[in-house]
């Protein structure tokens, strides 16, 4: 059989709906109820298809630019040129696309999906093989929900956390840092504490809670000290981006943790666009962070494989950021997490599925790893054609 080449590419914006309205975080206004996933489909001359998501590209660019970029990287390209494979495992991007995948990591996921489908193997195998049979996921939708229903305040956030538990989740992440923008610093810290304690009360002890400050405690280490002390009883699993990445600041947080008996992991890195950049490298080398979080789709599989090679032996866990990647990002995180020794948990936006029909099941707070080729995600073609194809933009050769 002659090598397959990519001959059709298309881009389609598909509305992804959350199951509720998402409020503010420390710096951004309400997220709302619905977002667009920019679905990229690339098909070979033999009809095999790979998919990825270009949503992050679209934040700062245009459909025209996206189509031009996809045409240049993929159109007419032999599938065999996309990835270097040794012993059934990807060792790096193919030379003709290496620079593009480094710059646009999301493209590499399409390559893994397509190569997997052409060769009948799963992305998990291409990423090194399964190290676990199911991957835990956390509900990441606990934004500043108290502002959405001010009469209830922290109770509103606690009710939503209890709902996550009823829906089967065993982990959830709470957005904090209210004093960074939307409240006065001290009042914001008090509300953060109230919300965390109310949520712990609502979900019970056998439930993992993380918090994410989105840098909302920048310039207020004294208040962060209060926050850490007062939330020790809640048993926080990780403290994410409480302040902007900074060596002195993170040393100060370590000291606060030691003083107050906080066992929480310190995590950050979603803002690292060129991993592993200098400050993060120093944080890792100096043992000041425990988890590193570049985005799963923005960086893609090829860059995340390289990151893991560089993290080996450092004692830092892989915790890819995933918010904003919708259902697709959950599937990509699942494939990556299934093959990663140090992976912690999938960031799950709990979007309502649309055209994607995944082969995976969600049980006891974890996604079960499957064996289907590629990512194991099919597109419901009938639904795609009837609901979304009117906005499909095609790249022609």
């Amino acid at each position, binding site marked *: 059989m002659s090598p397959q080449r990519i001959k059709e590419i298309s881009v389609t914006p598909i509305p992804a709906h959350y199951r509720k*309205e998402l409020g503010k975080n420390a710096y951004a206004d*309400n997220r*709302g109820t619905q977002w*667009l996933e920019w679905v990229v489909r690339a098909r070979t001359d033999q009809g095999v298809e790979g998919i990825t998501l270009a949503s992050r590209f679209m934040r700062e660019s245009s459909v025209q630019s996206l189509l031009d970029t996809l045409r240049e990287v993929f159109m007419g390209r032999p599938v065999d040129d996309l990835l270097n494979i040794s012993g059934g495992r990807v060792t790096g991007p193919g030379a003709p696309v290496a620079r593009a995948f480094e710059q646009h990591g999301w493209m590499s996921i399409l390559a893994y999906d397509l190569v997997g489908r052409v060769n009948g193997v799963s992305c998990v195998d291409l990423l090194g093989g399964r190290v676990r049979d199911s991957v835990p996921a956390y509900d990441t939708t606990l934004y500043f929900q108290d502002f959405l229903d001010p009469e209830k305040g922290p109770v509103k956030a606690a009710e939503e956390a209890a709902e996550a538990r009823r829906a089967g989740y065993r982990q959830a992440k709470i957005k904090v840092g209210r004093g960074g923008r939307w409240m*006065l610093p001290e009042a914001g810290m008090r509300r953060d504490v109230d919300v965390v304690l109310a949520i712990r009360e609502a979900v019970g002890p056998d439930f993992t809670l993380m918090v994410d400050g989105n840098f909302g405690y920048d310039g207020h280490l004294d208040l962060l000290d209060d926050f850490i002390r007062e939330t020790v009883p809640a048993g926080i699993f990780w403290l994410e981006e409480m302040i902007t990445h900074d060596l002195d600041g993170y040393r100060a947080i370590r000291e606060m943790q030691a003083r107050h008996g906080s066992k929480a992991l310190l995590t950050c890195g979603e803002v690292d666009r060129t991993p592993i950049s200098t400050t993060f490298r120093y944080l890792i080398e100096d043992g000041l962070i425990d988890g590193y979080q570049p985005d799963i789709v923005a960086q893609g599989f090829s860059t995340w494989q390289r990151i893991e090679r560089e993290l080996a032996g450092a004692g830092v866990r892989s915790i890819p950021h995933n918010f904003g990647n919708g259902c697709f990002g959950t599937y990509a995180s699942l494939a990556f997490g299934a093959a990663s020794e140090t992976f912690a948990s999938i960031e799950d936006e709990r979007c309502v599925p649309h055209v994607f029909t995944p082969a995976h099941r969600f049980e006891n707070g974890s996604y079960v790893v499957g064996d289907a080729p590629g990512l194991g995600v099919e597109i419901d073609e009938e639904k795609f054609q009837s609901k979304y194809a009117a906005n499909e*933009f095609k790249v022609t050769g």
Partner: protein
Amino acid sequence: MPHEHRISEIRIAPVETTFGRIVGRNSKSENYGLNQREWLVHVSTDSGLTGVTNARPSMNRAPLSALYESLKLLIGRDVFEFYRLSNGRVTGVNPRWQEYLRLHGFVDFALFDLMGKALGVPAHRLLGDRVRDRIDAYDSSLYFQDLVHPELGAGAVAQEAKEAVERGWRAVKLKLGRPGKWFEPNAGTSRDIDVVNAVREAVGPEVRILVDANNGYDGRLPLLERFVRETAQANVFWMEEMITENVEGYRQLRDWRDRYSPGAMLVDGESDEGRNTIYWQLMEEGLLDAIQPDMLHLGFWPYHILARDIEDSGYATKIAPHNFNAAAIGLRGVIQFGAVTERFVIAEDSTLKFDLYREDGYEFTNGAYSVPDAPGLAIDIDMDLYRRRHSRDETVIRN
């Protein structure tokens, strides 16, 4: 001059409100979503008066702590020290406060509210005599609904326009500029054309259709010509921000407008205070039929001076204040301003639904608002509801 109204307390609270549906993208930004919010500010005096404004302009650019610090400067100040008044009219600004009010134009709303209440006159009377009793308004919430409901295509916008007319609107504004970012440019132009023509079909010949491309045709003038040509039969009332302000581009746009759609106004300028040289160049050449600085950002007095300066220049440019993010309080300010401004065109209404504001004299019938005679801004807040819902999130500034 009365001197017994010193500002003694300021309360700030975020007030969430809803569109009642998802409002989608414009040519450059993500969804507006279900909700927007005002940052409601109550400014109270030791004499028992309270004026209100919406601090959203500040909260859009800086944290609450910055708003707190800037509003704190008002504590202890007399409500009449900010402006010069003569015969019940504001005639100038106190230089001590000029820069402050330029940076915090929204504070002007609360001051006019307070001065009006102290004098027992509506806010607009501080600027001049009323020139109209009713203020036309347009529904400004028709975004890229075809990306929210892809299966409906252009019909997604047409359906919402029809519903707006059923709710009483006689003018609607459609967001355009799909070639700018979210669509392949030719497909985006086709969709823009389809949307305008489908809306005209849906709302009938009498309803005014305004379009706003948020500069989405920048660098794509041939597509803009196609748009103007192929929507000629829709009789568009105005074309807003079709391209970024530049004299050469606007000359071409005016030529196409004159050829295909001669009734349409060319409007621009929401992101500026109207003082940038480019606007005066455009006005001089007759390329700008209306200018649109944001009402809440600018404040009553600077807007009044802008209108006066345009009048003095002899240019024909009219005034149509931008108001999308400013919600209910911003709209009421636009209505007050429109009541006394000859060259005012129409009020932008984001149509957000508030249950916090009582029926307050701004009565909406047949596409227009009445102008209340009550003192100040005549904004009547349900304080029981306010205390129950918002006291937990209030930030209070006192002496």
